[in-house]
Each structure stands twice: as structure tokens, then as C-alpha cells.
């Protein structure tokens, strides 16, 4: 048999024929139709590749897992989902505002009951000290003091507390001195 194109197909042409015979030039395609050797080469390569695919399929371990679909979504759920995010956002915004104002309140300089009672005590102390200083700076003479028969509204015990005697204070002084010496 006389071949249309005497030259056999080369490796590149064989591959092109395996991919798609239309990829070959007209003369080469004609040669492939007529040449048994080239045809055999193409067929051999195709068979090898087919065998590879077949063996690959056979060598895959069987599918053991049951492939399932996710649960069907119900309409009410989708309806809920339309307002749920808005509700969530509104609730979140409310919480943020609540904590914001709570923070503002705590930062404002309002006096607590404890603070207010201690400030009252301070005012009283100041007033008392003022009175004491007045008494110390402007003492009445003994004669006049006896005439008034007044002790300035303060009893002895109180005055002893405010202006203790040196004798009584000695221990504390001694204690301080001892402390200093110890240091």
C-alpha cells in the first residue's frame, strides 16, 4: 500500500493525535489513517492512559460515608432570621447606651452617704477648732471667768481630750522617742 505521506509521525505528532486527531495537519492525519505502525503507536499510548484511569478507579477505597444533605430550612426560620439580626442590633445598641450612661453616672462627682457624713464631721471639726483657737487667743481673766460661771459649752473631759495634759501625754512622747531610738 502506498502511503500518502511516507514519513512516520514523530513523538510530538503522536501526542497530538492522542489528544485530538484534528490537531494534526491534513497530510499527517491522512498518514495516520493509512499507516498501521503510527496507528498502533497512537492506540498503544491511548490504551496505556486508559489503563491508568481504569486502575485508578479500581484502586480507590470504597466510599464508606453516607453523603447527606443538610436539614431542610423551614420558612418560619427564614422569616425569623429576617428580623432577628435587627433585633440583635437594637438590643446591642441599648446595652451600649445603658453602660455608657452608667459610666457617666459613676464618673460624676456625687457624694456617697459615707462621703457626706465624713464631710459633715470635717465641718464640725473645723468649727470646733476655730472655737478653741478663739478661746486660746482671747482668754477671759480668771475673775471674769468666775463671774460668767461658763465653761464655753465644753466640759472638762472634752477639753482634756482636745488639749491633753503634758503628764498624760508623756507616755506617748516616750513611746515616740523609743521608736526613734529603735530606728
Amino acid at each position, binding site marked *: 500500500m502506498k502511503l500518502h505521506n511516507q514519513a512516520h509521525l514523530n*513523538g*510530538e505528532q503522536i*501526542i*497530538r493525535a*492522542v*489528544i*485530538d486527531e484534528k*490537531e494534526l495537519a491534513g497530510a499527517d492525519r491522512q498518514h495516520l489513517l493509512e499507516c498501521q505502525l503510527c496507528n498502533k503507536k497512537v492506540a498503544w*499510548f491511548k490504551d*496505556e*492512559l*486508559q*489503563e*491508568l*484511569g481504569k*486502575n*485508578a*478507579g*479500581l*484502586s*480507590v*477505597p470504597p*466510599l*464508606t*460515608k453516607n*453523603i*447527606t*444533605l*443538610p436539614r*431542610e430550612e423551614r420558612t418560619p426560620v427564614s422569616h425569623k432570621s429576617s428580623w432577628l439580626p435587627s433585633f440583635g442590633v437594637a438590643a446591642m445598641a441599648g446595652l451600649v447606651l445603658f453602660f455608657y450612661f452608667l459610666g457617666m453616672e459613676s464618673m460624676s462627682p456625687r457624694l456617697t452617704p459615707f462621703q457626706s457624713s465624713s464631710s459633715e464631721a470635717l465641718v464640725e471639726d473645723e468649727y470646733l477648732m476655730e472655737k478653741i483657737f478663739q478661746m486660746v487667743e482671747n482668754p477671759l481673766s480668771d475673775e471674769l471667768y468666775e463671774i460668767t460661771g461658763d465653761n464655753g459649752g465644753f466640759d472638762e473631759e472634752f477639753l482634756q481630750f482636745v488639749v491633753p495634759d503634758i503628764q498624760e501625754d508623756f507616755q506617748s512622747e516616750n513611746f515616740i522617742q523609743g521608736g526613734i531610738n529603735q530606728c
Partner: protein
Amino acid sequence: MATEKNKNMSLEIAALADSARDGNRWSFQELMSMFQEDIYRLVYYRTFSQMDAEDITQEVFVQAYRKLKSLNDTQKFRAWLYTIAVNRCNDFLRKKKYLSLLRMRSVQEQEFMEEGKGMGNNYNDSIVKKRFWEQVRSLLDKLSVMEREVFTLRFMDHRNINEIAVILDKSESTVKTHLYRALNKVRKDAVFFQEFRESMS
């Protein structure tokens, strides 16, 4: 005859996909039973792990079910499903590569252990299959990412050039070019074909 059968099959798939897109759950389950084996194999060819292939197959169908409304041409359901599967595999392999950098145990060691679990009871059969996959992997390792993808889709997943072009969103000539390069490399590894044939016989 075969063409007629394929045409009828394509029409059936398109009808089921149409129905599933309109919310018919049963139709989608039919499609699932038609394609789950194919998708599972496709994933296995890329992950070489039974456990991962099963999990990814599940994910592929869940994703397809959720996104079915976005499919305009139901005639292309199969290609669309394959695209999802290929993309999921690529995502998985990317993550695996990243994780392997963080783990102490090597990827090869893990894969060997996983392969061992899926071997089944027949020890000899398992050894043959293991050897076969080792050879396939060494062959695929010689190819670039795109060459490997095109080669696997054409000769292991049995898709034609036109389908591969749709799945990978490339032109047919691009697919042919990658396939040509892949076959050129594979041809040089002719020993492989002889070896795996002997091992399977």
C-alpha cells in the same frame, strides 16, 4: 448508540437539576446518588486520603445544594459540580500545605498512616494499591499544577476537552496545550506504565 445514551443522560441530569433548583429536594438527592462516586474518586485522586475524600465529597454536595440557584444553565450541572469539587480540593491542599509547616510530624508520615486505615483486610491487595498510588503520585509530581489538573481530569476522571475547559474556565486550546505538555512528560516515564501493569496483573 453511545452518543444517544449520553444525550439522554445529559437531558435527565438537566431536568433533575432544573427541578432541584426549583426547590425539589428529592431531585437533588437523585443527582447526589448519580455523582457521589465520581466526585469521591475525583477528590481521592487529589488528596490520596479516604477520610479527607469522604469529608470533602460531603462538603461539595452541601455547597452545590446551597448554591444551586446561582446555576444559570442546568445543562452544565456536571461541569459546575466538578468545578466546585476541584476548587474544594485546591482549598484543602493549600490549607494542608500551610498546616504541614506548623506540625512536627511530616505530611508523608501522616498520609502513610491514613492510607493504612483505608487499606481494608486484604493485605496483598493493599500493598499493590499502595504501590500503584505511589507510582501515580511520582508521575503527577513531575507535572505542573495545571498540567496535573488537566491530565487527571482527562485520563482519570474521563472528562473530554470541552468539559475540562468549562470546569477550569479555560479555552480549549489552553487545555490542549497543558495536556500536550503533560503527555510529553508522561511519555518519557514509559517505565511507569509497564510497572503498574505488572503490579495490577
